[in-house]
């Protein structure tokens, strides 16, 4: 079934399906039912990263270097883990500035510089055209291979096919038609192409299925599983060497460089920027895409090694190019259907890349290369022409054809002499040059236009010298003597071993060298240029807008940076020339509605509207051109750097102020919480105190009632009752005295009678006052008091109160039987230290701090609230504090508690 007719029918049929899908996708988008607005399609569209180079080249590379094909996919996996940090920021910036290409991104960041935009475009085109050529080469080679079935020729057999009989040429033209039809259907301010994205997602499915199909066929059809392939491959010395990589430092650093370059490429390749940023429907899709896309990469690589080893085992060494194993293995096994499917898979990998890449490049060529030049030509055509939209589309279409022709020419004259993989890495290295300007641009405000310019030009120059020129020489365009001997015989300048550096994954690999030097020069240029140049006002503003994109309140209001005068009519006319009358009117009406103007005519031509107009234009012609256009109709007054700094400064102050406010709010909230807590404690205290007051009152009252009702009670009973009344009233007055004391102390109205006092006497008096209590509970009391205690200064009565309080507390918590209290008094340096120890239930560690607070009582499970007002310890603490002492408790639950306090000794001692 592999006749030429069938193959061609399938190929063109497949491209026909792409047309249908893209058409359907566009129609769906127009009617508002987007078919691409989900993370799965987004992840699949990112897989446009996998080109024919992956499809055919991975196996070729694995046959040569073993694991050497993996960094190209591990790099993107790592970059995706940073998707939330880097990619999301780029997406957010691009959406808010209507940025539609990587060139526009860099131009816009560095002050809407058309020079930068142009340079980036040239770099991208020169860097990527070989990569497009690589896809054409893959299509052409695979077609020639499968056409000669059942003969398994070498892929390098396209010697001298005339252009018009070369399938690659026709495929290139069909792809041009596709890209023109769906990539430049009309001018969209957003530059989104749902039809193309849908088609690309479909292509990603096809190439994955095709590769998995051939992988499964080889692993389980030709061999008996992974183990079988590896054990057979292990028996061949030449294959076994692929199981490991070289252990030299050069190889490991080459490996790391590959990972790094691939990380950058997946972000910065024009086609990746197109699908990941421009075509992104919703940032949230990143959540799933940052692991689905790496999973896709993993899936498409699982069978690379089995296919490689299968091919190496099946074919005699050198008889079949390893780049073609994917196709030649099914052909050799006479699986015609599978071979055809694989061929289509390769076609899908190649076409997907070519379509998106040409489309992205054409936008860049039009917006960042051609338009800035045209706008500067003072030709009446450009100033009088009513509708320039048609011109824009024509330029884009023309550039698509031009890029594909360049790709084809490169393939026809150069690429066919080079291996697949080296071309791909050359392109990766070229786009990696954008890394400092882009990554630096979104995280470092100080990066300037001059820095970006120096970095890009320097890096690109080194790239051209170390990779591009040698590859042209190797293809035979000019003498390659400078590669081996260095220009003018200077060995240090040999491009592949610049300055003698020779790293690389394999000895013949020159990519790592070029990556190292070009990026070093690039970075040095970027940093140096940025630090030694003064940014303009616009650069400053753009830098702040880019770096601080996630700030809730923007640091710079864009409108505050524009001053000048224009009329709404002029701006409207300008917009209409690029967007057409209808779309312009729609856009103005939207603006009027959003800003609550009653009609379009009522819109003032103020800074806000000028910014809006510029942004509308930026989506169509790029930010640099939009800038030029708007300033051509708006008579702007130049705004000086000092004024920008003033604006920035004001905003910064406002931010600092709001930070202070936030802090104050937090403090206020804390204070409020504390107040509420105090309030709650006071309530609790009042209820405790009233309860405590009521108990003695109740008993006094009931006894008084008994006495008054029973006048003939026996005298001993009467005496007993009066004793109770007496005791209870004493308790009452004690409580009231406590509350009063506390109130006095709290409000600072306490009168202190400070004298030199003798600690021993204080303790003795306190013990006398509490002897009754201690004896009642049959508590064993021990006192250890040094006989030569020095005197302290203080209020004697208050200190007795402290001791009485601590002792009665200890009594309260002592067990009913076998209670024991120890009192110690010692001197500790210049302090008197007194301890009251009990063997009661102890105090939980978390309670030890709070028991000295007002109104605090510890609740014990099962024992409820201990009797007392909850003020005793607070009063004690106040007294000790007033004497300049310290009080604390040491306790472990269940092992009693020791209350300790210290008092400073009297000075005159």
């Amino acid at each position, binding site marked *: 079934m592999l006749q030429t007719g069938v193959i061609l029918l399938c190929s063109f049929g497949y491209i026909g399906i792409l047309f249908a899908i893209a058409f359907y996708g566009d129609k769906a988008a127009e009617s508002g039912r987007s078919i691409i607005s989900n993370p799965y399609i987004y992840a699949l569209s990112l897989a446009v990263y996998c080109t024919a180079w992956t499809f055919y080249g991975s196996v070729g590379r694995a046959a040569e270097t*073993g*694991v050497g094909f*993996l*960094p190209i996919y*591990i790099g993107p*996996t*790592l970059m*995706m*883990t*940073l*998707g*939330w*940090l880097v990619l999301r920021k780029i997406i957010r910036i691009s959406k808010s500035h209507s940025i539609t290409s990587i060139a526009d991104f860099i131009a816009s960041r560095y002050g809407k510089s058309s020079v930068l935009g142009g340079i980036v475009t040239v770099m991208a085109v020169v860097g990527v055209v070989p990569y497009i050529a690589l896809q054409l080469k893959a299509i052409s080679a695979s077609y020639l291979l499968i056409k000669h079935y059942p003969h398994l020729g070498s892929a390098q057999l396209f010697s001298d096919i005339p252009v018009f009989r070369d399938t690659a040429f026709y495929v290139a033209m069909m792809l041009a038609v596709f890209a023109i039809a769906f990539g430049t259907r009309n001018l969209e301010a957003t530059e989104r192409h749902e039809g193309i994205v849908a088609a690309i997602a479909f292509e990603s499915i096809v190439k994955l299925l095709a590769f998995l199909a051939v992988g499964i066929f080889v692993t389980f059809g030709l061999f008996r599983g*992974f*183990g079988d392939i*590896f*054990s057979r491959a*292990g028996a061949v010395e030449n294959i*076994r060497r692929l*199981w*490991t*990589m070289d*252990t030299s430092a050069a190889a*490991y*650093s080459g*490996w*790391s460089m590959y*990972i790094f370059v691939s990380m950058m490429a997946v972000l910065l390749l024009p086609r990746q920027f197109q699908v990941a940023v421009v075509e992104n429907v919703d940032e*949230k899709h990143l*959540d*799933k895409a*940052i*692991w689905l896309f*790496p*999973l896709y990469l*993993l899936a498409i690589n*699982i069978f690379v*090694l089995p296919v490689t080893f299968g091919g190496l085992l099946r074919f005699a060494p050198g008889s079949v190019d390893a780049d073609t194993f994917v196709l030649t293995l099914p052909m050799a096994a006479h699986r015609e259907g599978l071979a055809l499917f694989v061929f289509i898979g390769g076609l899908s990998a190649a076409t997907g890349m070519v379509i998106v890449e040409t489309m992205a490049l054409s936008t860049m060529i039009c917006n960042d290369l051609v338009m800035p030049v045209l706008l500067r030509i003072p030709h009446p055509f450009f100033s009088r022409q009513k509708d320039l939209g048609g011109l824009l589309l024509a330029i884009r279409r023309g550039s698509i054809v031009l890029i594909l022709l360049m790709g084809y020419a490169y393939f026809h004259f150069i690429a066919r002499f080079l291996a697949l993989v080296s071309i791909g890495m050359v392109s990766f290295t070229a786009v990696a040059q954008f890394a400092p300007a882009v990554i630096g641009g979104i995280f470092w405000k100080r990066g300037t236009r001059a820095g970006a310019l120096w970095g890009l030009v320097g890096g690109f120059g080194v790239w051209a010298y170390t990779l591009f020129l040698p590859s042209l020489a190797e293809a035979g365009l000019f003498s390659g003597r400078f590669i081996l001997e260095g220009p003018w015989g200077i060995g240090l300048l040999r491009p592949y071993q610049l300055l003698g550096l020779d790293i690389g994954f394999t000895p013949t690999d020159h990519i790592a060298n070029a990556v190292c030097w070009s990026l070093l020069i690039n970075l040095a240029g970027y940093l140096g240029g940025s630090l030694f140049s003064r940014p303009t006002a616009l650069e400053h503003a753009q830098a702040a807008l880019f770096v601080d994109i996630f700030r809730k309140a923007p640091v710079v209001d864009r409108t505050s940076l524009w001053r000048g005068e224009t009329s709404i009519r002029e701006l409207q006319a300008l917009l209409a020339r690029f967007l057409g009358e209808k779309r312009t009117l729609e856009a103005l009406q939207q603006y009027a509605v959003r800003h609550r103007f009653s009609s379009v005519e009522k819109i003032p031509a103020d800074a806000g509207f000028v910014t809006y107009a510029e942004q509308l234009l930026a989506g169509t012609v790029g930010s640099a051109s939009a800038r030029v256009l708007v300033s051509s109709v708006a008579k702007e007054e130049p705004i000086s750097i000092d004024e920008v700094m003033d604006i920035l400064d004001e905003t910064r102050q406002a931010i600092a102020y709001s930070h202070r406010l936030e802090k104050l709010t937090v403090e206020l909230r804390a204070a409020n919480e504390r107040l509420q807590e105090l309030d709650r404690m006071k309530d609790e205290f009042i209820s405790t105190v009233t309860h405590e007051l009521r108990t003695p009152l109740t008993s006094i009252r009931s006894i008084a009632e008994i006495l008054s009702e029973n006048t003939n009670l026996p005298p001993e009973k009467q005496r007993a009752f009066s004793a109770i009344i007496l005791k209870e009233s004493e308790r009452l007055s004690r409580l009231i005295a406590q509350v009063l004391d506390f109130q006095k102390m709290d409000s600072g109205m306490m009168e202190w009678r400070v004298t030199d006092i003798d600690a021993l006497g204080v303790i003795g008096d306190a013990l006398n006052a509490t002897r009754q209590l201690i004896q009642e509970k049959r508590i064993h009391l021990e006192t250890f008091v040094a006989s030569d205690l020095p005197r302290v200064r203080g209020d004697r009565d208050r200190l007795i109160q402290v001791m009485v309080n601590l002792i009665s507390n200890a009594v309260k918590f002592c067990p009913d039987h076998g209670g024991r209290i120890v009192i110690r008094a010692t001197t500790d340096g210049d302090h008197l230290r007194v301890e009251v120890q009990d063997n009661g239930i102890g105090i939980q560690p978390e309670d030890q701090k709070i028991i000295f607070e007002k109104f605090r009582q510890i609740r014990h499970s099962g024992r409820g609230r201990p009797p007392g007002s909850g003020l005793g310890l607070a009063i004690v603490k106040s007294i000790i504090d007033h004497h300049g002492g310290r009080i604390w408790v040491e306790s472990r639950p269940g092992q009693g508690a020791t209350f300790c306090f210290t008092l400073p000794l009297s000075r005159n001692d």
Partner: protein
Amino acid sequence: MTRDKLKNGRLVAVFLIGLVLFNYPLLSLFNMDRLFLGVPLFYVYMFAAWLAVIVLTAWITRGRS
């Protein structure tokens, strides 16, 4: 915002883990001519580490959209 920051921090951590896993010197521990379950050890390590990074990323970004 803090949740986003947390997620961001975790993803950056995964990135750093990935950098360590896929670079010298960790790489050299597995760069040896040996089979693991019938598959060359180096390949097993590569794909396992790769899958681990993917699974971690998926786990961090799971749920709530």
